[in-house]
């Protein structure tokens, strides 16, 4: 149960509050607001001004409390990322759920985080050093620390494909693929488990099919079999490649 609520006006105030035991940062609250576990205090980040989206050179700087809908409506948001955000949750929730909160609370079915993983998003922590944590390193362990920004590469080609039972249902499998100008190709898959999985990050796309196939090796759950996911991952990755090559 939530036993205390704070809305700090400055980062310093927030950090001081978060240094207290059993205290957690609150983004949009779509997950934490219904907390029913051991007593906690929450620190609402809405007054910190972290709700801006800025294009800085080759990068898109997304504030931690930018809502998913805000990002979806941004002119700087790549179309394929918009598609992933749209699938993440319905409009009402997108109006509240924050970019950082969605990362922190995601499971493996998150289209948005699958897309960020393929984009090799950088999470900027609100510490003195502004520590940069690649999302791929963050997701397996989800270390404590306050995310203040998410940085996305912009001069890349990016595609997202998914298969689901209905057009707006959560994906049984989604594949996100990013290709840099250098040829570097990074593919993430999502749709099961506790986090999206990185299938490959290589200098070129070759071997992508085996990579996504292997990434789904243990992808069994009540919604689909690993056998199915392995096979269609190759098809979806192929479609992603075709999209960016078109």
């Amino acid at each position, binding site marked *: 149960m939530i036993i205390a609520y704070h809305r700090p006006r400055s980062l310093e105030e927030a950090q001081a509050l978060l240094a207290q035991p059993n205290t957690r940062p609150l983004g949009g609250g779509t997950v934490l*607001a219904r907390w029913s576990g051991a007593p906690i205090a929450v620190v609402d980040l809405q007054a910190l001004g972290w709700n801006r989206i800025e294009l800085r050179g080759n990068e898109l700087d997304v504030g931690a409390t930018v809502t998913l809908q805000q990002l979806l409506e941004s002119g700087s948001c790549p179309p394929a990322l918009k598609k992933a955000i749209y699938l993440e949750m319905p409009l009402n929730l997108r109006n*509240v759920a924050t970019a950082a909160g969605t990362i922190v609370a995601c499971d493996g079915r998150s289209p948005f985080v699958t897309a960020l993983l393929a984009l090799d998003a950088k999470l900027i922590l609100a510490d003195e050093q502004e520590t940069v944590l690649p999302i791929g390193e963050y997701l397996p362990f989800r270390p404590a620390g306050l995310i203040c920004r998410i940085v996305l590469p912009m001069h890349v080609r990016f595609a997202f494909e998914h298969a*689901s*039972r209905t057009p707006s249902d959560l994906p049984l499998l989604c594949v996100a693929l990013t290709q840099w100008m250098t040829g570097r190709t990074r593919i993430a898959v999502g749709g099961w488990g506790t986090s999206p999985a990185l299938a490959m990050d290589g200098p070129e796309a070759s071997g992508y099919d085996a990579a996504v196939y292997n990434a789904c090796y243990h992808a069994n759950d009540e919604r689909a079999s690993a056998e199915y996911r392995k096979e269609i991952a190759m098809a979806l990755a192929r479609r992603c490649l075709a999209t960016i090559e078109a």
Partner: protein
Amino acid sequence: MNITLHINGLDHTLDVPPHTTLLTAVRSLGYHSVKFGDEHGLSGADTVLLDGRPINAAVMLAAQAEGHKIATIEALGQHPEQGWKKTEGLHPLQRAFLETGAIQCGYCTPAQILAAKALLDRNPNPTEEEVRQAIAGVLCRCTGYLKPVQAVLRAAAEMRGEIVPEQPQDVAGVAFLDTSAEESSSPAPDSRLPQVATRIMPKVILAPEAKTWQTVGKPEVKVDAVKLVQGKPAFTADIEKRGLLYAKVLRSPHAHARIKHIDVSKAKALPGVAAVLTWKDLPRVVYSTAGQSDPIPGPLDTFSLDNKVRFVGDRVAFVAAETPEIAKQALSLIDVEYEILPAILDMRQAIDNPPVIHDEPEYVNFANSQPHRNLAAEIRIDIGDVEKGFRQADMIFEGEYVVPKVQQAHIEPHVALTYWDEDDRLVIRTSTQVPFHVRRILAPVLGLPIKRIRVIKPRIGGGFGGKQEVLIEDIPAHLTIATGRPVLYEYTREEEFIAARSRHPMRIRLKTGVKRDGTITANEMYVLSDTGAYGCHALTVTGNTGHKAMALYVGDGEYRKSPNIRFYADVVYTNTPPAGAYRGYGVPQGYWAVDRHMEKIARSLGMDPLEFRLKNALRSGEYHPFSTAWNEGREPRPEIIHTVGLEQCVAQGKAAIGWDDKFGNEAWHRSAGPNKRRGIGVALVMQGTAIPYLDMGGASIKMNDDGSFNLLVGATDLGTGSDTVLAQMAAEVLGVPVEDILCYSSDTDFTPFDKGAYASSTTYISGTAVVKAAQMAAERIKLRAAKMLNREANGRPPVQPDKIRLADRKAWAPDGRFVPLAEIALDTLHRSEQEQIMGVASYVSPSSPPPFAAQFAEVTVDLETGAVTVDKLVMAVDSGVIVNPLTASGQVEGGMTQALGYAVCEEMTWDANGRMFQRDFRNYHIFRADEMPELGVIFVETFEPTHPFGVKAVAEIPMDGVAPAVGNAILEAVGVQIDDIPITPEKVWLALRAQAGQSESRI
């Protein structure tokens, strides 16, 4: 903590605990339009606008909203006339929802309207797709979204200053199919033509008898629409009681266990806890939760609390406390020691398996229940000589089909509030489809005589059969008895999934004998049906599977005269959440099997699938084959089917979907692009209308001083619009507009008995009662009118009462003289020979005339992923005369949408320990506004002679044919057979892979 919320322009300061959600806060302030639908914000019933954007109040802390502008629908518009005070009236969005029939149960309506308002505030000229995306955060289980979307487009046009078409009032000949939404990007204010056409009306092929009516057959606005569109506190949980306690239930973590020891001392000691009840505290009264007439056609196998639990989620203890949070905390303080027993989780392993799920000595058998064998019911029906029919067949086709457990998923959860009134009578205010059954069934359970219980049914936020169950009312009632205080119990969404009722999962085997010319010679179905842990509806649901689905195809020629049909079923207990009533009541299960089977046979014979079906289908003038053999465990009574509009349904449906251009057309199949194939499919179905010789409905009508009428019915409008169609029928008889009929339902103290809303019976059974009551009142009115006219005869011949006609709020003599009904009312109530003009009537039917339908589906299949997109659904249905095409088409659209979920995505599954995987709307997906196929509705009217206005049922039949039509369309698209639903991408992909493997092996 103290917070200030700025709601609808007003500041409200509250002292609330930090965990208080915005939903709790706004409802505590009286903004009852904001509803609870689920804990995750996925239902969207909890929508408010925060700084102009729709958000979910259930997943936001109240403190988070401080400093923001909150808007609810209470501030949007209001009734235009409030006595001497005139208001600006309803908002255009509210008016449009009302006029287009976009409201069914109305539970989600405020949320939809707010979401739409947020859109129109930013984008006054949205596309249909933008509207669909904007309201996609609000789930609606009733409407299929077509009419809400059109309402938003209509309101948008009006708000842009464009002329919108009048609400169509007449259904003339073949009308209203069309339906293209024509929108103008540049408004033409001078034009006298409407700028936007709304697609809300179905095509209606009228019965000739319908043309003379004034009200019946017209798209009247729902009688409850004005309050629902304003978000008025009309639902069960929308009242406040001083001293209210909140109930919670401790639920079993085990699928099968005996409670060895239970200690509630710590829970009782928790401050704020008012009562904790276990099985030791309650009288041991065995009963059935099935909301059915007496005697219950099923076993009595349930206790309010027992010393044994039979599924994960079964009841262990009840708590009442000052707040829901304290009650929840108290649950965690109850110590229970279980003796875990072996569990049966697979229906195929149930019969004669040593773990006996019901070993209680109090068990009361019905018909062929055999609890020692884990058999809740057994059905054995033989019609004709089935074995002879098989011997006479040229070919025998056999197949097995599987259907899953699915949830009704009404957006308003089960909720009940109980309290003692000033006469020490127990009041149960509950969201139920069966208020009178609740009273009768709970009386012994609570140790009260029926006369000391009053059940009030307010508006219901959807039911779909899930509330044809006396599911939760006993819990707050026991706690009110224990504490003397009012108690509210509202299911969480998780409880809806783990501890409510669901559609029976079944495994169905079919065997059919056929002549080479396509004549069916014998048809056999065996059903293994899983009732879960309790046998509520076990016999009757599964009986319906055969009774309706196996009745349609009787064969042709000599076989038509004497069909050979066998229907056997075993309904087994398992340690899974109980199944129960769900719209369609066993019939959708049957038609998945029967129609897929018919498709396979037709194709094997090289026959046109529709020609094959129609050749063997039931025709008017023939006996319902099952009526000679089965009647839900009672005496069978043969029944002739008078009206069958099936051929016309097929013709109309084919034309609407373009069947002849698409079926078998390879170019069309490939028209969706590479790696995609399109396909088209059909299913023919029939249902029933009410339960003959059993279910009764009553109505009373009284005339008021102004010539208006109070219509009191026990029938329960669960959002379907039944109050409206009952009012229409009364209005038709009494010659008044619908607005002069004040319909109230239902309260066991005040309204006549009615069996409740189930078995597609309200328009037919309760409607006939209403017509009879109205006719009684009309007779009195005519007598009085004749007297009044003859008083002023002035030498003219006397007027005979039976020659008087009631119309336009007047009683008309043949010579054109008339008396206004208001004058008649004043005369009878005040002036001379005073009397209360009223009528009271009831009706039980000897017939159950089936509606028939042809349901079509168009799909696109992704060859690489197996994903199926359903592009279009068309239903042409013979439901007799349509009393209200707006509400009836809403029923069909909503039913098709639920059935679509049944076809492609909905399924309840559990792990090896019996724990349900699907516990919320994230894991149990129901269709949203932004992913709907195009929907088409056609009514092919017949005049059913057993009803005064010729009606048959419409509510359930839309559930029956969508899944097989989709399955058949997939077959047409890619040539694979899927025999179990839901048709997931993986199943299609596996079938495609197997097909490819076979092709390779042939090469």
